[in-house]
């Protein structure tokens, strides 16, 4: 998901770089304010950044011989706090871009926004929100972490697709399915890993996990309560609404076949190209749009959402049992 140079336009890069720079400065201010020993902050955050980098080396299988790797945004936020996580992930992205050519230097602002700010900071309210609905205790904590991890990967890839579309590089209808489809599955791996990491760390060093002390006091709930199903229902409804309303919007660019049909005169109704976004630096780039097949795309979106939701929900249920079984085996 690291955007190289040349994919995002100068305007979008300047905008995302400005957002990222301001957020980073804010994050540094917040971390300085929050931490008890200020001198420990720099070596600690730097070592954890090196940890995120090393952890991204450990690939996990997706099936069919392909593999994905861990992103680490929600793990960093859960263990170090959202503002520290933003700094950590930014340092990782700078090193990856500067030293390893993984992610372009001009796209650094976009990459920090997608992975550092959205993954590290913006998923924190998601965790808070889910935990407010779920029963207190470890189960709720892990479910919230799992959903937030999946969301962090999905949001990051969606923002990536959005930036590509606004830059005129790739129409949203092409970039979004490619990105979101790939990362919907990688996100499941991310969720599994995040929960396993939190379990392992809580077992060996509960003092490191900020939320753990409070969780110890509350009663442990073994089974998923009714509110879980309520929350799942709300989530599914929102997702379906987005699928119905969003997918026709996302598919306004013609594909090659439609274009052929148009030119050969198969399509009776004429469709006109319209400049939605025109860039100052790239006068040749524009997004074409025509209206076609709204209902069928909505339907496809709905089916896709249900399949992904079912898979995700099943995976989370499968995963929630794991901490109880193998609580401290990882550390022995």
């Amino acid at each position: 998901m690291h955007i190289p140079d040349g994919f995002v336009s100068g305007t979008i890069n300047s905008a995302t770089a400005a957002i990222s720079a301001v957020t980073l400065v804010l994050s540094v201010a917040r971390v300085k304010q929050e931490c008890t020993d200020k001198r420990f902050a720099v070596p600690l955050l730097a070592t954890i950044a090196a940890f995120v980098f090393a952890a991204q080396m450990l690939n996990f299988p997706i099936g069919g011989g392909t593999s994905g790797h861990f992103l680490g945004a929600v793990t960093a936020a859960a263990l170090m706090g959202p503002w520290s996580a933003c700094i950590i992930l930014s340092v990782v992205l700078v090193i990856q871009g500067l030293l390893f050519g993984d992610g372009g230097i001009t796209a650094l602002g976009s990459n920090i926004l997608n992975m550092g700010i959205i993954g590290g900071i913006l998923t924190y309210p998601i965790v808070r929100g889910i935990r407010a609905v779920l029963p207190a205790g470890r189960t709720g904590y892990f479910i919230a972490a799992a959903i937030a991890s999946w969301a962090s990967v999905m949001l990051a890839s969606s923002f990536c697709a959005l930036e590509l579309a606004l830059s005129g590089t790739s129409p949203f209808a092409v970039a979004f399915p490619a990105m979101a489809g790939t990362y919907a599955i990688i996100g499941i791996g991310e969720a599994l890993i995040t929960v396993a990491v939190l379990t392992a760390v809580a077992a060996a060093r509960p003092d490191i996990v900020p939320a753990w002390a409070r969780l110890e006091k509350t009663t442990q709930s073994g089974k998923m309560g009714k509110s879980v199903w309520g929350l799942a229902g709300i989530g599914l409804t929102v997702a379906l609404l987005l699928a119905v309303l969003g997918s026709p919007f996302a598919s306004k660019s013609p594909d090659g076949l439609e274009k052929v049909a148009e030119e050969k005169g198969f399509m009776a109704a004429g469709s006109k190209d319209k400049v939605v976004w025109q860039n100052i630096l790239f006068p040749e780039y524009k997004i074409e749009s025509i209206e076609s097949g709204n209902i069928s795309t909505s339907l496809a979106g709905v089916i896709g959402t249900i399949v992904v939701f079912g898979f995700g929900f099943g995976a989370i249920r499968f995963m929630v049992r794991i901490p109880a079984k193998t609580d401290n085996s990882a550390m022995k």
Partner: protein
Amino acid sequence: MGHGFIDRSSRLDSYVHRLDARTKIILSLLFVILEVSIPPRHLLAFVIYAGLLLWTVALSRVPLGFVLKRALMVLPFSALVALGLPFFRGGELIVFWGIPLSVTGLWMLAGTSIKSMLGAVAFILLVATTPFSRLLDGLRRLGIPMIFVDMLALTYRYLYILMDEATRLRRAAIARGYAPKWLPQAVIVGKLVGNLFIRSYERAERVYGAMHLRGYNGQIPTSASSWFPIHEKIGLVVIISILISVRLFIQ
């Protein structure tokens, strides 16, 4: 353990190696910003930029194969995003082996591939000709806040150590019969990552203890300000004007 240390060639000696880190940082950044802004159809401008870059690589005596191999890192993203463009983008079409391809899409694919490769090569060359400590010193002198420079320095210091740690963890897991095939087995990777986190955290505690004992007070000491040679300033202005005029006038 055998890492392909990225700044392995940075201790070689050449004209490019001897330049001030600031000169190289400013030039690399400007080069990438300008080449990224070239419209895809201005082929001559790309050729001139690529020529200048390759000439610098030759001048630096860094093996071209090393640079190109590193730059291949950009390809997976291009494959995911850009490879489909000729099939989806509208506009003028050409038929190639019976498949209709969009001309705009093909230009877009070519443009993004060239731009991302040039950007990657430029920065790999910067790092390959500048030891990391001098690169950080250059960043600091160019006004990057100390806290970020210190953090980059320490991250780089522990990067390869923790990568070794991760490799050891994975090797131990494989020795115990870990051969993952399907997605739910990512849980086991999660346990390894959790273990790695604890080792990293405890290493940070030890490192901080050692730094504290040696008088660390929140600032890593750096050497006094260095002189920015006047001939480098002149050279910098000349190359910048070449890059800008190529970008503006060649189409």
